[in-house]
């Protein structure tokens, strides 16, 4: 029979290990909202993302990322990287809602949803600091019928 303090210690050990695995390794999350259609469904897909690429700064245009929302510190967004700041040939981007050329500086990332008509993204709030990027989505595990790797090229809408 284990004593109470022993099982508490066990709980702390494994709780903390799980936390570290989640925050520094891979994490699962539900993505709700129409902005990434047709790559992700609006009803709420469960995706797996890793924290390593943003930490090492190896994100590339096309990657689907989870980021803290610049317009709400309590929520997260899931978008596709369009431009990584201050790389050759990609540093200027047309911000078409304001009709002015938008410069993506070093350390910032331009995010856009695949569903351009129904997405609040960098076109609205400008380039996003890299520090807000939490992880790179690489796998969808729910719904069951649509388990697949998430790559750098957006899905083409079929309808």
């Amino acid at each position: 029979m284990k004593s109470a303090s022993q099982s508490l210690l066990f709980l702390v050990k494994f709780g903390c290990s799980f936390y570290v695995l989640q925050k520094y390794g891979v994490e699962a999350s539900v993505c709700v909202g129409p902005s990434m259609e047709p790559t992700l469904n609006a009803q709420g897909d469960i995706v797996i993302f890793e924290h390593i690429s943003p930490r090492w700064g190896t994100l590339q245009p096309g990657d689907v990322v989870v980021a803290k929302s610049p317009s709400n510190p309590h929520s997260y967004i899931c978008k596709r990287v369009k431009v990584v700041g201050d790389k050759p040939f990609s540093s200027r981007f047309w911000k078409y809602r304001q009709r002015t050329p938008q410069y993506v500086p070093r350390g910032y990332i331009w995010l856009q949803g695949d569903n351009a008509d129904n997405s609040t993204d960098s076109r609205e709030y400008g380039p996003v600091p890299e520090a807000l990027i939490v992880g790179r989505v690489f796998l969808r595990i729910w719904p069951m019928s649509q388990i697949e790797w998430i790559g750098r090229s957006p899905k083409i809408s079929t309808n």
Partner: protein
Amino acid sequence: MKWLSWHALEEVIKGCLWSIPITITFCDVIGTVAKVEGYSMSPTVNPKAGTNVDLVWVDRISLLFKDIRRGEVVVLACPYNKNRKLIKRVVALEGDHIWSRTESRLTYIPLGHCWVEGDEGDKSTDSNQLGPIPQALIEGRVSFIIWPWKRWGRIPQVPQGSSENRLIPSKVV
């Protein structure tokens, strides 16, 4: 070597390994001690240039249940360099208007953003150069000075900061 049995050694190594995730979790969730470099927050932190490096307590857990208020000192990730941390005072919150310190331009703070400034106006890289900053960049409250002992104690929340006549609040909090 009778006092050092293999079993005891194994226990020690196990303990050391387990302490790694526990320490990381503690630092990430509850808080850490941090060293402050630079003088942008003098005279509150690092008052005299060149003489001292203050240690402060960065409180992270309170972010989970208490929203940021005007006048609090916070640690945030530098917007243009994710590996750098800044320590600044929150001067204005979403919905407020503020006159920037350098040029007389009235800025509106958009949703989810805030305006941060160093207490030492001129030596500070802050919202006066960078503009409004996403609140999501904030990683913790700087609540306590731990070292040097002479200035040990809670860091006061100065709701107005140095911005008394530049801030037009949207609502009084």
